[in-house]
């Protein structure tokens, strides 16, 4: 039993890890393709059909480029930076439920690596840890531009974590649980999706998620026009690759979170009326979940070519003076509505 359980989880971890890395890899291609589409040009189309081999070429290039560690850099922390960034990016997907259960004879497999009753808080902890990768890398580079990028990253991440947390508190008031598995299970069907009860919370969550992922319009830590390259100015070769990779993995995980917390995760409309067996519903559910995730990744890239970058003071004003009061108002509103519902209906 114990061995079988461990083996099952190990296979699941390896599969999810592979899927995460492949999606992150192809997100780089998708980003450039979508940029091409938005700007009415082709995008990369030389390596393979439709540029399908482009990510492999990029990866190979990253591995074979010369690796430079600046003389004035703090060597240990310079290497630690990208390592922390990629590890924190990869471990955050552990609590996301990818689907319901699959049944083969007597064995049932839950498509979630770890069902912990504090799943939402776990994600927060990992996000909070993620900023260390950027900060240490930026500081250890011993470069003014890198340091500026690192400082921007730290202040931005801390400011928007508050908005993110407050927007989620309203969601937790509705769902009454901190377990992501349970939150998704509650949203069975279509009308139970949390987006219908928490539209304002979702908008705040998305905005803060963009800021936490350092995506445009909040990509100040790596603002090329002001900071040469941002916190990774001094990085070369695969270390730079790992930073970029961790950014794409973060984007994938936050898309998965948005889909799971607000858009019903693996639930899809009329899932119980189709008369399919449980296994088929699970498989379709996983596909539906991934298509929701891809829709959000597309949304991330769409925004990149729609909105210009914020200025630093605008970023801080938006975070502290607009999003946080809005999130608190959302909490109060949610509380009042829950109270009215409980007393009168």
């Amino acid at each position: 039993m114990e061995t079988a359980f461990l083996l099952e989880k190990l296979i699941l971890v390896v599969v999810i890890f592979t899927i995460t890395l492949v999606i992150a890899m192809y997100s780089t291609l998708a980003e450039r393709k979508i940029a091409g589409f938005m700007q009415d040009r082709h995008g990369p189309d030389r390596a393979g059909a439709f540029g399908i081999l482009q990510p492999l070429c990029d990866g190979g290039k990253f591995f074979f480029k010369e690796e430079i560690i600046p003389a004035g850099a703090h060597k240990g922390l310079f290497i630690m930076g990208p390592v922390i960034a990629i590890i924190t990016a990869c471990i955050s997907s552990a609590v996301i439920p990818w689907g319901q259960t699959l049944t083969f004879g007597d064995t049932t497999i839950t498509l979630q690596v770890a069902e912990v009753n504090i799943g939402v808080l776990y994600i927060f902890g990992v996000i909070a840890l993620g900023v260390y990768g950027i900060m240490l890398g930026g500081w250890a580079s011993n470069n003014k531009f890198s340091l500026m990028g690192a400082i921007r990253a730290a202040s931005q991440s801390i400011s928007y974590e508050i908005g993110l947390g407050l927007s989620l508190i309203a969601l937790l008031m509705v769902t009454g649980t901190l377990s992501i598995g349970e939150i998704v299970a509650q949203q069975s069907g279509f009308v139970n999706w949390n987006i219908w009860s928490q539209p304002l919370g979702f908008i705040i969550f998305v905005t803060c998620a963009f800021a936490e992922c350092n995506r445009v319009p909040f990509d100040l830590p790596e603002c090329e026009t002001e900071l040469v390259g941002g916190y990774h100015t001094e990085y070369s070769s695969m270390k730079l690759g790992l930073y970029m990779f961790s950014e794409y993995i973060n984007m994938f995980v936050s898309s998965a979170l948005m889909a799971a917390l607000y858009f019903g995760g693996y639930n899809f409309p009329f899932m119980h009326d189709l008369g399919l067996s449980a296994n088929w519903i699970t498989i379709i559910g996983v596909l539906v979940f991934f298509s929701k995730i891809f829709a959000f990744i597309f949304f991330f890239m769409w925004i990149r070519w729609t909105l210009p970058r914020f200025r630093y003071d605008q970023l801080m004003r938006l975070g502290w003076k607009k999003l946080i009061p809005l999130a608190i108002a959302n909490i109060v509103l949610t509380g009042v509505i829950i109270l009215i519902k409980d007393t009168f209906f």
Partner: protein
Amino acid sequence: MSFFYLVAFLSVIFSLMTIFTKNPVHSVLYLVITFFTFTVHYIMLNAQFLAVVNFIVYMGAIMVLFLFVLMLLNLNKDTEPMKSPLVKVMGAIAGMCLLATFLGAFRALEQSDVLIKPHENIGLVENLGKVLFGEFLLPFELSSILLLTAMVGAVLLAKHEKGVKKQHG
């Protein structure tokens, strides 16, 4: 039990490293690792909520701010202000006084029996919430007022200079 001793050993080692390392940034990083070992302790005690909150608040927020300030100051051996021997002696005396106070306090405390856990799952969110908002509602709310006061005070301190300038100008 042996795992506890390993983690406890690491906690002590990293706390000592925090104090003895010369570089302030290293010091903060060792403190982060120390807090991480505390998180492991909480998990071993089945206090999941406390563990994850310790992780988020101390490791994720407070230590990032520490690191933030240190990076801005960019302290190193050359720029470190030389402290006079008097300050060092005073610091040592103050530290010893604190140690004596702690020792006295721990002696006065009743030794609880570790083997008897009154509530096995008290550390889970649901149970902790019920205790905090039931039995300990008043202290809990009072501490929230205390935090609010501290926050308003911090904002006031940050704003004060501007107000003074306006009055004079």
